[in-house]
Structure formats: C-alpha cells, structure tokens
C-alpha cells in the first residue's frame, strides 16, 4: 500500500517539475530554476544537519566551493573527465568534513558554529590566495560542460533536465532518510540529546555522519554549479553565502525536506523580484533571519504547519510547544 502512494507523489512532483519548465517562455527563467535547483541541493543537506540533527554549520559554502574548485581544477588544468572530477570533489569534501567534524562535533552550539565558520574563512582565503591552482580572485575560466554519451549539457534546457533530475533524486533520497531509522534518530537528538543517548543512539557518531553527508550534497551542488557557470571565482563561496544558506533553511523551515525547496526557491527568486530594492537586500535577509527565528524557531513553513497541527490537538489539552 505504501509504496505506490509514495511513487505516486514523486511521479506527480517530477511531472510538475517538467511541466513548469515547459511553461517557461523565457530561457532566463530556466537559468533561474537551475540555480534554485543547485541551491536546493545545498539547503537540503544543510537542513538535514540543522533542522534534523540540530547542529549548525556557518561554513557550508566551503564544501560547495571545494566541490566547485575540485571539478574546475581537475577538468581545466588536468583535463579529467567531469564526472570523475565530481566524484573526486565529493571525496575531498567528505574527507574534509570528516576531519573537521571529528573534533568540531564534540563541541556544542557556539563552538561548532565558530569552528565551521573558521573553516569557511580559511577555505575562502585558500581559494583566493592559491592563485597557481585556483586562478585567485579573478576566477577560473573555461570549465567544460558535463556530457553524457555524446550529449553535452550546455544549454539552460539540458542543464535543467540534468540538475532537476539530480534534485529530484536527492529529495527522494533525503525524504526516505528522514523517514528511516537514521532520520528518526536525528530528529530525536535534536529534541533531546539525553533521551536519544539513553535509547542507544550514538549521537556523536550520528552528527558526524550527517555532517559529512551534508558536505557531500554541498560538494555535488558545487560541481554542478561549476559545470553550469563554466566559470568560478572565490566570491561565490564566502561567509555571506553560508549565511544565505542558513537563511534559506530558516525560511523553508527546519526539518522539512520540502521546505528546503521552498526556502531555496523564495530566496533565489526574491532578490530578482525585489531587484529595485537591492540596497535593502541585506537588511531584508537579516530581518528575515531574526524575525522568523524569534517567532517561529522551526522556520517559516515548518512553523506554520506546526501551528496548524498543534491547534488541531490543542483542544485535547496539550501544551503548546515551541
């Protein structure tokens, strides 16, 4: 019974994704959707870490960058196959996350935030300073498009198909993870680390696992980004971008795979729509972060859904949780 329903839902979504694309009269919107897709990958990963495991990373742009630069450097300088380069990027990001994660995840809250932030700053500086490899601040040009069996992903349409295929797969995978034993343990440790431990959940290991996992997503997104842009520069991977990712998670709602899609979508489209208020963009970002977290600590969408749900049960005499 459960499987067909599940399949149904995803088929519906996949159909919607392609229908939306067909409705786009203008290729610009496809490009926009492509970036939304890439951002969604990042946000889903970060959301697994923040929303589910309750751990924060203020340096996720670093893993995004590691993926992008590994792909870029290996294909441009060494002429490696882009798919292999993508894999190499994920390995490097995963190992980096593992090494940072072992000590950092023993630390709680602020320390982890600071450790990831420090890591982000260092990686950004390396991108800027290691000019022999990365091309420095002027960027790395000429990154080839991905290709598969003679098909080159070099137009917004083809990229759209590729990127959203990946996004759909990752969304399915992540939604299943969340619903599985590991997902439950993650959500559990977010609500009460003590209780989770008392039931045999090795919270330390689990946090590390999900930290590495989310770094893999970020790296994958980075590689796709590099092959989409054909050009990368350090400025895409700075702290501000890490903070924007956190904003996307917060807007989309913590602990909500679908919310990640929404968060990435809204915050990628919003600056485009509000383009004539660009001086206010940072203020708006900051304001969103504060207001949402103050009043709906589980993020916008998840918070509103919770409100609805809890209102339903309130009559039965439950306390209102935050």
């Amino acid at each position, binding site marked *: 019974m459960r499987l067909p329903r599940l399949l149904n839902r995803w088929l519906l979504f996949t159909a919607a994704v392609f229908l939306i694309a067909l409705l786009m009269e203008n290729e610009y919107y496809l490009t926009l959707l492509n970036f939304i897709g890439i951002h969604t990958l990042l946000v889903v990963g970060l959301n697994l870490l923040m929303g589910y495991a309750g751990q924060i990373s203020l340096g996720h742009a670093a893993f995004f960058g590691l993926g992008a630069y590994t792909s870029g450097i290996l294909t441009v300088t060494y002429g490696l196959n882009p798919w292999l380069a993508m894999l190499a990027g994920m390995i490097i990001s995963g190992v980096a996350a593992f090494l940072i994660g072992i000590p950092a995840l023993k630390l709680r809250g602020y320390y982890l935030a600071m450790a990831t932030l420090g890591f982000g700053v260092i990686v950004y500086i390396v991108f800027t300073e290691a000019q022999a490899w990365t091309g420095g601040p002027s960027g790395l040009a000429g990154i080839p498009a991905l290709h598969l069996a003679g098909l080159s992903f070099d137009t917004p349409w083809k990229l759209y198909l590729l990127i959203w295929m990946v996004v759909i797969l990752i969304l399915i995978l992540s939604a299943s993870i969340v619903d599985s034993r590991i997902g439950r343990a993650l959500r559990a440790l977010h609500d009460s680390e003590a209780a989770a431990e008392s039931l045999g959940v090795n919270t330390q290991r689990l946090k590390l696992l999900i930290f590495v996992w989310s770094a893999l997503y970020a790296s994958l997104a980075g590689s796709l980004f590099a092959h989409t842009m054909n050009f990368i520069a350090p400025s895409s991977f700075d702290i501000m971008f890490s*903070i924007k990712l956190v904003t996307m998670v917060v807007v989309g709602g913590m602990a909500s795979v679908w919310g990640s899609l929404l968060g990435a979508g809204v915050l990628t489209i919003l600056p485009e729509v509000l383009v004539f208020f660009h001086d206010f963009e940072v203020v708006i970002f900051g*304001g969103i972060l504060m207001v949402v977290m103050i009043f709906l*600590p589980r993020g916008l969408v998840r918070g509103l859904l919770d409100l609805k749900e809890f209102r339903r049960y309130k009559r039965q005499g439950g306390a209102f949780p935050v």
Partner: protein
Amino acid sequence: MEILAPLLQYLISGLTNGAIYALIALGFGIIYNATTIINFAQGEMVMLGALCAISIYHVNPSLPLAFAGGVAMVTVIGLVFERLALRPVRDPSPISLIIITVGGAVFIKGIAMLLWGKDPYSLPPFTSNVPIGLGPATILPQNLWVLGVGALLVLFLEAFLRLTLVGKAMRACAYNPRAARLVGISTGRMVQLSFGLSAALGAAGGILIAPLTLGVYDMGTMLGLKGFSAAILGGLGSILGGVLGGLLLGVAESLASGLISSGYRDAVAFLILLVALFIRPQGLLGGKQ
C-alpha cells in the same frame, strides 16, 4: 639583530590589534557570563561605535564628546537590540540564538550601510600623529591610546565585577541564575546590563581604532569574528583569558603576515582558533565546560 628589529614592530602592531580583539572578546564574555548567549552582533557594535563617533565629530569637532557620545549611543543600541531581538525569543536553544544574532549582525550592517553609505570615514587621532621612535621600531601615539585606554577599561571592568554590588550580582547571575533570583537579583536587569556593557566596550574599541583603521559600515564583521576567536582562545567568560586571547591572536596574526605570508594572515588567525578549539576547547584560562 637584523631579525630583531622587525620583530619589535610586528609586536607593536600585533598588540594594538590584539587590544581591540581583547575588548571585543570581553564584550562576548560579559554577555556569555550573564546569559550563555554568544552575541554574533558584537562586531557590529564596534562599527557603530566608530561611525557614531565620527558623525558626532563632524557636527561638533570635540574628541572627548565624540568618544562619550559614541559609547552612549551604542550602549543604547545594545540595550534596544537585547529588548527587541533577544527578549522575545521563544526557543532559546543555541542554534536559534546563533541564527538570531547572526541575522541581527547582518541587519545592523545593512542599516549602517543605508545610513552612512558605503564610503569609509576618518577620525583624527586623539593626540599628535608624529610617530615615536622605540629603538628600531616606531609607534604612533594612537597605538599608545589604544593600549592605554584598553588596559584601563579592562581594569575598570574587573573592578566593577569584583568590587561593586551590581558587579557581584552579575557574577552571581552567571554562576547560578536560579539562586541569584532567589536572593532577589533581577536576572532580566542583569542581562540588560550585560548587553549594555558589552556594547559600550565594543563601541569604545571601535572609536579607539577609528583613527588608525578608518570607519566603514562593514568593518565589524571580521573584527567580531576575531574577537570571538580571542574569547574562545582565552576561555569564554574569563576576563583575563579574553585579554590574553586577544593579544595572542593579534600578535600571532602580525607575526604570520610578517614572517610567513601576508595573504594568509586571516587564515592563520582562524587556524589558531580551530587548533585551540580542538585541543583545548575550554580555552587557555577557561574552567571546565
């Protein structure tokens, strides 16, 4: 001998920067002690201090007035920030608080950009601008001001916390909020006080270095991060630790850019932080976590 001459210069420059990091670190520490919150907007207080003082100076060119006015304005901003952004928080988990204060920092920076524009501003040095020879090295009178006033502020803070009733109450709050409430200390008041005090310290730091570094709307972020690194390095919440952490970080940075590579200066600062976090997360002078 050849090697020694630049070393002294690196030391001077490192200590000056370090003194500012120390002041910011103390700001972090004060709030952390009273509330266990890390206020990521602390760096923006430094920026606001510098820019407010510069604006006041433009209206009325008196440095003491600019200093006092700048500190006073930012203190008020710190209090308002606590009232509007942190008092109403419904879920005071670290992750929420991090996001809120980071959001606050971005927000304050954005507002400052709208108010002051994107251009940097200068503030004249407190006294003469003639460098003083110090053996093979030179030092500006403003460097001395930074070090001197910084040291005074630290002493003042230490005395305040140890000797005055309010200060003792604050420490009591930090040690055991529930017990403090039982003996009639208003913890809410203490939290407010801690935000005001740390904003004031940050602002003072900002005004002190403005003549050396100029004031610009985005100067706060990096200073805030370095200040926090210093606080962690020294041990969160320890006054002496914060000072030590700040000075160490400043000197390390300066030596790194002088002796290793100037491009990796910030990377070195954060590398030290990471190593410190991993080896000794409670900091040099911090107690148990």
